[in-house]
Structures are given as structure tokens and as C-alpha cells.
């Protein structure tokens, strides 16, 4: 039937019109760490996912000042909105006088999907504090990256952003990572005001620490030198993964290593 051929041809033509720029393949590096068993495979992005627990609300505009860690939001506090069904939603933040439009770039990405399925190891009543939400973002329509995260610096540079943005970042990525990892930045919303900073660990190595500012924290990861800094849509494979939440009363380490892909993260609520 002619119509049949017509639509199949049109589907084929559509497929031919799709432009795909294949990212570099994941690559295992040689070196001393190669012998380290990789019993647990996790995307590095899930590290940053850190703490998605709350799913609530609709689009929200939040204003904060990164240089003033105690700054209060000018919008309704308490509820984070950039939830999993809200790709495309935007938040507007002012950082050091620079207003940025943060757009939820892909809430269905690895970050969210893994977080949905992760359960931290530990006692049965272990739960994640109901405090935060992580999203992969773009800033002013451009992907956000944090290329300088391996330097001890308080400066976070977003690609394509006219000015660097200070987010009080401190530690960076260890250069001896065994695998190339995704370079990306995540803006993580924290609903718990007592948390001052968040640290990411993978393979027993501190990967990034960033201070919380106005309820937000920016965490980054990047490809190690072995891949010449290419932004690779690739994995990190680590035998342990976790985060530390820094509070004035003490730190809380949450181990994701024993995650159960079939389970949801229990919330403390």
C-alpha cells in the first residue's frame, strides 16, 4: 500500500535528520587504581543527586545571594519546586549581583532516576533527611559546567556565563580518578537551613565540597586529565559512594554504597 511506504519513508527521513554528536566513550584508565574492584557502578551524577527526597510544588522563583550565606529567600520558603515532573521549569537567582536563570535541563536524567531508586545502606531506619533536591541545570540556556573544580578555589565558573560566580566552593576533584566522569554542575536545593555544606565522596575520595548559600549549593564534577577535560557523558565507577552533610552540631555521612536499585530512598518524614 502506497500510504504505508509513504509514512515509513517519512520516518526514515526523520531519523536521517537527527544529528547526534557522539560523546567520547567511557574509558578505564590504566594505573595503580586499576586493580581496585569496582563492585558498585554508579553514575557520578548520582553523587550529586545527593538528596532528592521531596517532590512537590510547581514552578517557583527564588532569589538568593551567594555571597550572603544567611540570605533568606524572598519567595515562599520550604518547598522546593524543581521536581521530577517539572523539566523546563526555571528559577531565577541573583548571585553576587548577577542574575541567572536556572532551568531544569533534564529532570529525567541519571541524577533523578538513580536517586529515585537508591537506598542508602545502614540500619533499617536509616533515611535521608528531607531537605534537598538536585537538578541538572542550564544557565541562561547554556549547560552549566564547573571546569575549575579541581582547583582549591572559591570560584565556580559556568560555561558561557559572562562572569564567574562565587559559590564558596572549596575542595575540588581529585586528579587521580580512575575513570573519566561527567563534567557537570548541579544546583542542589537544601530545605534544611542547618546544613552549611555538602561533601561528595566516591571511591573513598572527597570529590567536591561546597558551602550552602541561601538554601542552594552548587556541586560539580569533571573529567580528569586522562580525557583532556572533555565533557563526557560517561560514568564513574566507584566502590563506595556517599555524601557528608555538614551541620554546626556535627557532620552526617550518608553512605549510598549499598543502594538497592529496586527500592526508593526512605525519607525521614
Amino acid at each position, binding site marked *: 500500500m502506497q*500510504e504505508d511506504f509513504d*509514512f515509513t519513508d517519512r520516518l526514515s527521513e*526523520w*531519523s536521517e535528520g*537527527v544529528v547526534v554528536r557522539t560523546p567520547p566513550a*567511557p574509558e578505564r584508565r590504566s594505573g595503580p587504581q586499576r586493580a581496585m574492584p569496582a563492585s558498585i557502578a554508579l553514575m557520578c551524577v548520582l553523587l550529586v543527586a545527593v538528596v532528592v527526597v521531596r517532590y512537590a510544588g510547581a514552578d517557583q522563583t527564588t532569589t538568593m545571594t551567594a555571597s550572603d550565606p544567611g540570605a533568606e529567600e524572598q519567595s515562599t520558603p520550604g518547598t522546593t519546586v524543581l521536581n521530577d515532573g517539572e523539566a*523546563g521549569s526555571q528559577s531565577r537567582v541573583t548571585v553576587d549581583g548577577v542574575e541567572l536563570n536556572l532551568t531544569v535541563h*533534564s529532570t529525567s536524567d541519571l541524577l533523578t532516576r538513580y536517586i529515585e531508586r537508591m537506598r542508602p545502606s545502614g540500619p533499617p531506619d536509616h533515611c535521608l533527611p528531607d531537605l534537598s533536591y538536585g537538578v541538572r541545570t542550564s544557565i541562561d540556556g547554556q549547560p552549566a559546567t564547573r571546569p575549575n573544580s579541581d582547583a582549591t578555589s572559591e570560584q565556580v565558573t559556568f560555561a558561557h556565563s559572562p562572569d564567574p560566580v562565587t559559590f564558596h566552593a572549596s575542595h575540588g576533584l581529585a586528579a587521580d580518578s580512575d575513570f573519566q566522569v561527567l563534567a557537570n554542575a548541579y544546583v542542589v536545593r537544601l530545605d534544611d537551613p542547618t546544613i552549611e555544606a555538602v561533601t561528595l565522596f566516591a571511591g573513598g575520595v572527597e570529590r567536591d565540597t561546597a558551602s550552602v548559600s541561601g538554601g542552594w549549593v552548587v556541586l560539580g564534577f569533571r573529567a580528569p586529565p586522562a580525557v583532556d577535560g572533555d565533557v563526557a557523558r560517561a560514568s564513574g565507577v566507584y566502590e563506595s559512594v556517599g555524601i557528608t552533610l555538614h551541620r554546626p552540631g556535627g557532620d552526617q555521612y550518608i553512605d549510598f554504597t549499598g543502594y538497592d536499585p529496586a527500592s526508593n530512598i526512605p525519607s525521614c518524614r
Partner: protein
Amino acid sequence: MIAREGDVHHTDPTELILSPPTTNAEFGDWYAATYPNVVRAVLALTRDPAAAEDAAADAFTKAFTRWSSVSEMSDPSAWVYRVAVNSAKLSWRRARRRLSRSTRTSDVVSMPEGDTDLWRAVDELPHRQRQVVVLRYVSGLTEPRIAAVLKISVGAVSASLTTARRKLANDSRVVR
């Protein structure tokens, strides 16, 4: 072992044992050859470039971390298609809820515009029929390979495809 056209395998991905990749070069070649088509398939199912990028990244990362096992499958490509397609299911449901929201972008993939009516008709097909149509006409997979990807019989693929083609051929939005 690299994919051969028409191969059917029955390896359950949940049965794979996590182990480090063994051969970067082998994986790299397979990845380069397979990645674009997997992205196209997921993009056709979701028409969400970011979701396609994510699903493909997820699937290939899993393949990478299990490469010693995946590479021994009779058809590693069918496995990675299946992982990506399954991953796209959730994205599809979200995309339908999102409807008029702005299209998300991706650094990796961009899709052509046009043929909205055709895609509307495809979108309205039952889930299985839509998968089969996409894998057959967008990805160009044979019916046996579609069966391997979806873990259904070749007969079920043929039946779904026949039904879908009939629906589309009789859809006024599709017929020019």
C-alpha cells in the same frame, strides 16, 4: 562478541554480574557504532533530546560497567537498546504530562522539525506498537532483532507491526 544482525538473545540484564570493562578499544568501537542509533530510537520514542541523551548515557554506562558480560552476549546491541528503551518509558510518560512545555535541549542530539501530524499519529499508537514502529522504521532493525530488544516473540513483533501499519496507513493525518 559484537552484535550480528538477526541474533536473538535471552540474557536478562538483571542477571549480569558487575565487573570492570576489559577492553577499552572493543567497547569504544561498539559504542561509536551503536550510540547514534540508540539515541535516535529513544528520541523517536520521547522526542525529548535531553531524555534521549540521558537514556543512552545510562544504557551505555551500564554496558561499560558490565562489558565483560555484555560483550559475551549474542547481541550486545539489542541489550543496550532494551536498557535505553526501558529507560525512555518513564521519560515518555513525563513528556506526555508536560505536553506544551518548552522542548528541552541537549548538547548531544538535535532533532528535525516537521511531520507533526505523523508523529501525533505514532504517539497515539499503543505503547508496544509505537516501540515496534520506531525500532523498525527509525532504527531499521529487523523483526528478529526487535524481538530481542523487546524480549517478545518474532510473531508478536510481526503482529504489532502489521496492526500499527494498518492504523497509520488509514489515519487521515498520515496519508498525504
